[in-house]
């Protein structure tokens, strides 16, 4: 019984939030990794792309709500997600046309691409703050919990319990579905295979008649779509803050690099590794240990490795360790 109580505690405070946050990171990291695989640069504007997608979704949600549209128990934002994806993909299309295609033709150094992406980041950040303002927006109007801690306790009779938020369930499910679609697309379809070929060896891909412009545009559209998903799901789960996305850039990059940059499976695994370790390291184990250990050995302190304030630092420490010990990441990145 004590063991189940401890397990319920860990599920509530580490596993569920960890897998939710990990899914959001994984979707973000997938976008970063795809851009890296095909265009070979680290896109610093990706956080702002997520923010952009979420913003469009919020604007349409407000519009929809003013006409009385809602999605029952689910958040209204989900109805407008496809529209937001469309807009973000269009925005990515414009970025590619007006900014990056020039450097691609000139075959510029990756670092020039990186600087250009910082220009895009600045512009997008300004655009977002200009349109929606710098303050927080809560747009989750669905039912908050599928079942909460109290209901769980009453159902199982345990002392501790866990609640499942609607946003958590939506996030985890969506990520599983999206990843499966993406992997089928990359591995089974002709277009997906041409993307992989292009990332593997550009010259060879050109020789076999793959249109580079098409591949690059498609990559941007997919990255934009994934960014929108990540941004909206993050906003639904926590709250939409324009400032938070620049901070999320670091865990996202860490996830992509830890998994092996350019490798989609790596990005997903990396996302979960980063998110879970952030929570495992900053969780206070006092209550858990109280259940597991005999009473005489009950700990007096918080039994916490690091204070919760250092959450973001954890992702960074993992990043540094991976860069030093195994720079190619867990899955030996570089190609799709």
């Amino acid at each position, binding site marked *: 019984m004590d063991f189940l109580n401890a397990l319920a505690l860990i599920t509530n405070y580490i596993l569920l939030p960890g897998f939710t946050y990990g899914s959001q990171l994984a979707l973000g990291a997938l976008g970063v990794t795809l851009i890296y695989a095909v265009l070979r*640069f680290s896109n610093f504007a990706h956080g702002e792309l997520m923010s952009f997608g979420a913003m469009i979704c919020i604007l349409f949600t407000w519009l929809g709500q003013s006409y009385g549209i809602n999605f029952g128990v689910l958040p209204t934002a989900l109805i407008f997600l496809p529209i937001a994806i469309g807009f973000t993909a269009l925005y990515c299309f414009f970025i590619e046309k007006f900014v990056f295609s020039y450097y691609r033709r000139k075959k510029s150094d990756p670092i020039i691409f*990186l600087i250009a992406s910082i220009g*895009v980041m600045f512009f997008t*950040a300004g655009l977002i703050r*200009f349109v929606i303002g710098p303050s927080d927006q809560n747009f989750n109007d669905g039912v908050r919990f599928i079942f909460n801690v109290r209901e769980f306790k009453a159902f199982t009779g345990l002392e501790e319990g866990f609640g499942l938020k609607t946003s958590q369930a939506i996030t985890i499910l969506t990520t599983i579905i999206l990843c499966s679609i993406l992997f089928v697309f990359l591995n089974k379809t002709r277009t997906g295979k041409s993307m992989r070929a292009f990332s593997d060896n550009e010259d060879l891909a050109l020789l076999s008649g793959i249109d580079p412009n098409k591949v690059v545009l498609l990559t941007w559209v997919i990255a934009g779509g994934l960014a929108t998903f990540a941004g909206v799901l993050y906003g639904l789960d926590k709250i939409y803050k324009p400032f938070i996305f620049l901070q999320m850039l670091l865990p996202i990059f860490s996830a992509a690099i830890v998994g092996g940059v350019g490798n989609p499976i790596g990005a997903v695994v990396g996302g979960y590794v980063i998110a879970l370790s952030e929570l495992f390291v900053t969780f206070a184990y006092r209550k858990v240990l109280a259940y597991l250990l005999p009473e005489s050995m009950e700990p007096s302190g918080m039994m916490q490795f690091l204070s919760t304030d250092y959450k973001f*630092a954890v992702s960074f420490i993992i990043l540094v360790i991976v860069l030093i010990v195994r720079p190619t990441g867990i899955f030996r990145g570089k190609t799709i």
Partner: protein
Amino acid sequence: MNDVFRRSLVFSTFAVAIVFIGFLQSWNVALGIFNLCLISATMALGVNIQLGYAGIFNAGVMGFAALGGLSAVIISYKPVSETISLGGLGILICILILILGSALGVIVYKSNLSQAYKKILFPLIIIVVLLCLNLIGAPAVERIEAFEPAASGFLGGFGLPIILSWMVGGVIAGIVAYLIGKITLGLRSDYLAIATLGIAEVIIYILKNEDWLTRGVKNVNGLPRPVPYEIDLQESTWFIELCQIFGFPLVETSSIVVKLSYCFLFSMVVLTLFILSEVALKSPWGRMMRAIRDNEISARAMGKNVKARHLEIFILGSAIIGLAGAMLTTLEGQFTPTTYQPLRFTFTVWVMVIIGGTGNNYGSLIGGFLVWFLWVEAEPLGLYLVELITSPLSETNPLRIQLITNAAHMRYMMMGLLLLLVLRFAPKGIFPEDR
């Protein structure tokens, strides 16, 4: 000759812009902007040494600037004797343990023990150090932070003149840069950018959360100044008489005099740094750096120690950024960790260097001046533009109100556009690098 003409033209245009602001808004505003322009130029000089001379992408500018700010607090704030007696000893022991632990780690790393031993010893050292810190440090920190948390709750500083902190800020930033550089400088360019971005975030997190050191988000206010206070000037007889002779308004003149004294101090620093960097760039050392940047492999073939040179330049540039950070905190008179945002510090400084011309010190100066000028003036300019565009809409139109309240954020868009346009159409910047 052409170069000299071009330079004087650009710099005098900037001077005209400042004078213009002086007449149009007020001299107080103009000098305020110019002082920050000088600080920006200092940061830009530091980044230029890294980015321009050696091609190192340091995305951790924010962190080093914050370390400079921290040094301003530690040097100038009066020591809080109560908290020192409460927990000073504990903190001191912790620092000693940290140093000892790192030294032990380095010894183990350098020793010729087998890999298996090292793999056991390293985690062991880390765990022991963490445990000691928790056992000794945590209670000390708790005692310090519990002491009058609304007014104090931190150790304070040494109570020395704040101007000393400029040098100390440089030294602290340099030491941290050495540690960071040791770990990250072997990385490829964009990995380095990501890693340094992360380190800067971690530094800011530490400053925000270690209340015993910096009061965290409660900020440290009322740092002493290196120049006289307005109120003292207004009360001193010689100043009142001086104002009467020339017929200046007393209050405004006093604040202008204060700003001018800051301006003098900052100009001295900028001038010195500029001359030193220019000499360094023209020296064999500068040529070697550029040779390494342009072709690392052949430089290595010539027997240059690329890694050591990169570390050297990373430390130098970061130290200058730290100095600029200390100057900034001195000017503001308070240390607020929450104001350190990567967009405002790191990436804006990059824009300064790139727009001015990477690898050219004149470029960094003018880039720092111009970009900061635009950053400040974008607000009134953006407001004017938005009002012009939305003028057909009625006064109470929600869209118009929304756009007008958010107009200040136009500055980010402007920075982005400026960077993209310069990168595309004039990638060498205003003053291209001398070859």
